[in-house]
């Protein structure tokens, strides 16, 4: 009975054939296995989302953080509108008003859903489930519409709905695409993945899982390390 032994170590990947000398036709030598380690893309992290429960205090802190950011981002992204239309008089007049805006599709179907998608992805990064992330986005965008944007214009019915809801639909697509790209391990994938889902870059992202392989005598395992 012939035997086939297989040797594989870090220094040489090769087959050694024993007991096959008596065969009529000698087997051709198999090509050496490629050094797979050399070709593997190394990634220390696995990107995912880990849903968890949040305390009331955490919810308030997250809402407050986003609310503070909107006061900074709004005048920075629309300086001309704030300069031309913004005033405390308008703020007082617009307070509590709710209208159908007449904006062009660029704003209602592009800018607001994109803003909403990033809000959704922020709350997802903080460990909220999809439904909870949508609810938190709804609260955040409502606060923005009724207390920040009224410095220049009254709150809009379309924005109140479309920012969180269309935003979360878009956010769901961006979430799946970004995770796929980030976990490919290649540089371009990571750049695009982080670009469409910037929350994955920051310290508050809870889904960055560190995978540490552990190999010992008669055992092999994977140590999963999660920070939050």
């Amino acid at each position, binding site marked *: 009975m012939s035997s086939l032994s297989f040797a594989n170590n870090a220094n040489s990947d090769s087959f050694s054939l024993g007991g096959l000398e008596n065969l009529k036709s000698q087997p051709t030598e198999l090509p050496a296995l490629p050094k797979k380690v050399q070709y593997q893309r190394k990634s220390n992290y696995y990107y995912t989302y880990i849903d968890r429960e949040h305390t009331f205090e955490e919810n308030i802190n997250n809402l407050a953080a986003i609310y503070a950011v909107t006061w900074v981002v709004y005048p920075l992204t629309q300086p*001309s*509108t704030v300069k031309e239309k913004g005033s405390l008089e308008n703020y007082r007049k617009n307070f509590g008003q709710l209208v*159908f805006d*007449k*904006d*062009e*599709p*660029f*704003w*209602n*179907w592009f800018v607001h859903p994109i803003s909403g998608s990033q809000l959704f992805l922020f709350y997802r990064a903080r460990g909220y489930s*999809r*439904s909870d992330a*949508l*609810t938190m986005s*709804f609260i955040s965008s409502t606060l923005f519409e009724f207390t920040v944007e009224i410095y220049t214009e009254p709150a809009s*019915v*379309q924005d109140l*709905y*479309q920012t*969180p*809801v*269309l935003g*979360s*639909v878009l956010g*769901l697509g961006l979430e799946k695409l970004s995770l796929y790209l980030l976990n490919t391990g290649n540089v371009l994938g990571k750049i695009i993945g982080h670009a469409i889902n910037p929350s994955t870059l920051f310290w508050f992202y809870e889904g960055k899982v560190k995978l540490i392989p552990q190999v010992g005598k008669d055992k092999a395992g994977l140590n999963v390390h999660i920070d939050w």
Partner: protein
Amino acid sequence: MFTLIGRICFVLFIAIMAKKSFSYENDFAVRAGFSYAQSSFNSLEDKSSPTGEEIDREDSRSYGVQTSFSYKWGRILGGLESRILLGNAADLAFNDDNQTITGEGSIRTVDITPFIQFNTKTFKIPGKIQQFFTGINISPWFGYMKFGPSWMIQSIELDKFNVAEEFREDHKLTYESIGFNLAFGIEEDTPYKDMHPVFLEISGAIYESFKVSLVDKSNSQEINILGSRDAKQDIKTFTLVLTIGMILF
């Protein structure tokens, strides 16, 4: 088209025979789908010309998306839904400040409807129909009816029009309307919403305008409202919408 949709409504109504409705409970859900709509403007009254001849106006066809955000208690849902529809109208005729504007152009419609939905008990697709779709795992379904008040904004941009003064090509008219939306549909009754159950829905909505604005859109980033006034009954709209979609999460 209306006849076809009417027949489908009738078949759905008959098909909604019941056992029990399961699916997810006491949870939020976001639905999204694609819609096809056919609208008639002023069709409630404006059926004849001043000379008494009957006018056969061409309906406006539009396509778009529908989303909804709802909470489910047992067999009752409450939530908000919105449709965005883009379409062309070849035979528009409506009043604006005591003058009639006729023409053709594009119409953008956004509506928002708070709704209450009542689900029927679960029913199964008959075996013969299941056999016809061999290879497709057909789940039990439930039927539903939902309704609610609806607010709509229509932006009308005319390519060719017949009107005196003021109205220019870089202007658009926006009508704000209020109405009522009634929908019937069926939805897959899956144990978990993560199985993304599919729904098919037909809805009818009637609107009456209450405000019109003339908007200068020459600068697409910063629109300028040239004027607004009350527009009670200027435009009456009847819309039938066919939507197919799924629960996303």
